[in-house]
């Protein structure tokens, strides 16, 4: 029997959702200040309106939903989903007001893409949008990478009880770096801001060396860092990172997005002296193996297509795209349509495979995640060993993720469920693309890219794509980032409001 939520349950959800929306409003201060610094008055007004809308909704919800009820798991998951949805609706307001998108759906598409660190975009005339608007794109992707709940936990939730862990885990992060979840959220920011300082400096110096003016070099350095570390894939120019035509810039980007794709708990272990964790961790091992596999498939595809007769561009283009796809970053150094017209289906299949697997759990990356692929592989091996061993033999598997663990049936069950959900979503998104009239390979590439929060595109994603397909991609990006559970909890909640007793 499904219980109908009480008024107090709704108030708890409203109260915390209001706090998180307030956090999203505070994020708008950054693009607002940028717009003011560069005297972009129209953009400043757009963000002023957006900020007022967020504050209105945030404070309004908090005022209307005063309660003493404790935050529970079922509330936490619904709050996470509702907050991401509200953040998308409200965050789209400045985009819409800027006039650079053809409608509110396109604006929401870009905000969901930014928050979920996907990197696909529908904004038009990207090369000429204001600095303030560009700053908003990158703030969204950087904040989304750490998680908007993590931001709220860091700044807005002081002294709350144990139920707060359900907010944190609902955002697809399960590993705690420290016993206290608020401290964990702060540590995630320590890691991210540490890398931000270093990565931005390196990219700014590189941009200066390329001949950019200091202010422009700094903004490009900052934005590309935010796009790379959050494995987001947004870039300030429509040609993405190909625009820089610089090997140094590309190598720096790879280092940053590989770092961004690491589990925050692994970062923390390495930063506190346990450097061996990088070598021992099941996710980093799995990443190395699958990266090699997909690099091989892509290289065979490219060699057969004969696109790059010289070795250097062959290596440079192929490994950049494979690593970018595997970390679910979505930075590219080839034209979108070149993937279809020059790279061909086999090379594209290599990239699709990399995007499907994705990188580490509890990182900024998307996809099925290395730890799940490892657990499924170990389960298969365990089953084969069991089949070949005497009936009385006790077979068990172990893996290392921050500590040595024994593979348990409950873990396998949850891993299988999420993996099946991901694969089904990839199939359905591809089907939606085909039904919209696109070729299978194009539909699979861009569909998987959206659902795995990668952002590489072979040209299907554009402002002219059907509205229904845009909506499906928005849903896929949201489901992929939340890893299903929180979104299903929101749908279940709505269902229980209607049908509960």
């Amino acid at each position: 029997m499904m219980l109908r939520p009480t008024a107090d349950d709704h108030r708890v959800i409203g109260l915390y959702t209001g706090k998180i929306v307030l956090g999203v409003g505070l994020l708008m201060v950054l693009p607002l200040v940028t717009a003011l610094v560069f005297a972009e008055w129209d953009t400043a007004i757009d963000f002023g309106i957006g900020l007022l809308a967020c504050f209105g909704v945030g404070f309004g919800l908090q005022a209307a939903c005063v309660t003493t009820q404790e935050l529970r798991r079922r509330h936490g998951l619904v709050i996470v989903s509702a907050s991401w949805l509200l953040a998308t609706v409200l965050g789209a307001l400045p985009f819409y007001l800027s006039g650079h998108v053809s409608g509110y759906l396109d604006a929401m598409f870009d905000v969901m893409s930014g928050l979920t660190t996907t990197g696909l975009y529908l904004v038009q005339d990207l090369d000429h949008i204001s600095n303030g608007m560009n700053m908003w794109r990158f703030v969204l992707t950087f904040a989304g990478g750490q998680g908007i709940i993590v931001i709220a936990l860091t700044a807005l939730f002081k002294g709350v009880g144990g139920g707060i862990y359900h907010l944190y885990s609902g955002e697809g992060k399960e590993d705690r770096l420290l016993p206290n979840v608020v401290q964990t959220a702060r540590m995630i920011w320590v890691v991210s801001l540490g890398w931000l300082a270093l990565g931005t400096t390196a990219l700014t110096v590189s941009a200066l060396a390329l001949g950019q003016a200091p202010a422009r070099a700094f903004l490009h350095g900052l934005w590309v860092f935010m796009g790379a570390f959050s494995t987001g894939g947004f870039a300030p120019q429509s040609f993405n990172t190909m625009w820089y035509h610089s090997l140094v810039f590309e190598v720096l980007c790879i280092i940053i997005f590989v770092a961004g794709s690491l589990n925050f708990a692994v970062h923390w272990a390495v930063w506190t002296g346990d450097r061996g964790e990088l070598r021992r961790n099941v996710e980093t091992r799995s990443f190395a193996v699958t990266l090699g596999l997909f690099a091989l498939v892509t290289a065979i595809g490219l060699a057969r297509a004969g696109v790059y007769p010289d070795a250097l561009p062959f290596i440079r283009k192929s490994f950049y795209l494979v690593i970018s796809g595997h970390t679910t970053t979505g930075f590219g150094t080839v034209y979108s349509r070149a993937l279809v017209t020059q790279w061909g289906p086999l090379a594209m299949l290599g990239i699709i495979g990399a995007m499907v697997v994705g990188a580490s759990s509890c990182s900024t990356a998307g996809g099925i995640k290395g730890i799940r692929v490892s657990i499924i592989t170990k389960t298969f091996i365990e089953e084969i060993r069991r089949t070949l061993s005497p009936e009385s033999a006790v077979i068990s598997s172990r893996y290392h993720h921050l500590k040595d663990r024994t593979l348990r049936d409950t873990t396998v069950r949850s891993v299988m469920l999420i993996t099946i959900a991901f694969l089904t979503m990839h199939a359905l998104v591809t089907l939606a693309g085909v039904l919209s009239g696109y070729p299978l390979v194009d539909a699979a590439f861009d569909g998987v890219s959206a659902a795995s929060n990668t952002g590489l595109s072979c040209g299907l994603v554009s402002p002219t794509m059907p509205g229904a397909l845009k909506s499906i991609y928005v849903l896929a990006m949201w489901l992929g980032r939340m890893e299903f559970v929180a979104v299903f909890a929101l749908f279940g909640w709505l269902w229980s409001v209607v049908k509960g007793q």
Partner: protein
Amino acid sequence: MESLTVPGRRRNEHLLKRIRSFASGVLAETGFALVLMGSCAAIIILTLLAGG
């Protein structure tokens, strides 16, 4: 006087330790990324040499 300077020194040592730990962590992660890049490039070169 000493009671004032010792905590200050401890704070500096603590900060220095943190910076050192951060630097070695970033270096280790950069090394990991470079090793991945190297292995990936090696696989691609071998494929290229083998003629696809």
